[in-house]
């Protein structure tokens, strides 16, 4: 299984990759913004799981998710927004764009692992 982590913070990408690997994903690609992530998908990456930050330079998380969902080959990918955004409106925008779940920062590894288990993409739970 492949995963893709999209966040402008390398520190956050490192934390997320650690958790994703712990959940059994053999390969975890990363990108610092939505545009770079789209390029990876364009080049053939087909992740089962995509973890996406909201606020990023170049292309934000909502724009990225909306763009990736236009590709039918990526309809089955589970998209989880990893965000500090707490407003209902922003959450609704993310879900309307094609996100499946969201996790609020700050989070513990257990919260994310449980969320992934609930989404049915891992059997691991914290």
């Amino acid at each position: 299984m492949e995963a893709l982590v999209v966040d402008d913070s390398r520190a956050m990408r490192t934390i997320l990759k650690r958790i994703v690997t712990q959940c059994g994903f053999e390969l975890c690609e990363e990108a610092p913004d939505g545009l770079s992530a789209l390029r990876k998908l364009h080049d053939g990456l087909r992740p089962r799981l995509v973890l996406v930050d909201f606020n990023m330079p170049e292309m934000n998380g909502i724009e990225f998710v909306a763009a990736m969902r236009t590709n039918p080959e990526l309809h089955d990918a589970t998209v989880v927004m990893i965000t500090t955004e707490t407003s209902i409106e922003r959450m609704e925008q993310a879900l309307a764009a094609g996100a499946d779940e969201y996790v609020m920062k700050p989070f513990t590894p257990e919260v994310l692992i449980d969320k992934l288990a609930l989404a049915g993409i891992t059997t691991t739970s914290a």
Partner: protein
Amino acid sequence: MQLTDIGLHEVIDGVWTQMLGYDIEPTVPPVVFEDTRHLTGSVAITGDWDVMLLIEVPEALALDLASTMFAMDQADLSQDDVFDTLGEMANMVGGNVKGLIPGNTQLSLPTISEGRGYQVHVPGSELLVQLAYRVGEWTMETRLVGRAR
């Protein structure tokens, strides 16, 4: 505005304690860094309010934070790793603070300042909340300054 010392403390505790596993103990602000090399991570929350969130830490604590987040020895960290870590700390705290502020606001990307003996001022703003903490052998401060439009 709903932002209080308690509200900001809960956000800080969530990031430092629950996510990163640090023990933080409230102390009396302000923290005076004097000639100690220190760093400031900041984000702006703009819109119906103009607010700046500032996290000020000694360099040694910034290095410890980066070592924790990257799970790397301090000797292997680059300056960019340290800046990135403090920027993400400011982003996480600022993003949650944004949720405590009424009205329509946007969160900026983080910025980092570093040096010795400097102070950060935001002209025309008032101090809204100021909290200080002991973190291990170090002390850090989080300030929120701003004004309604």
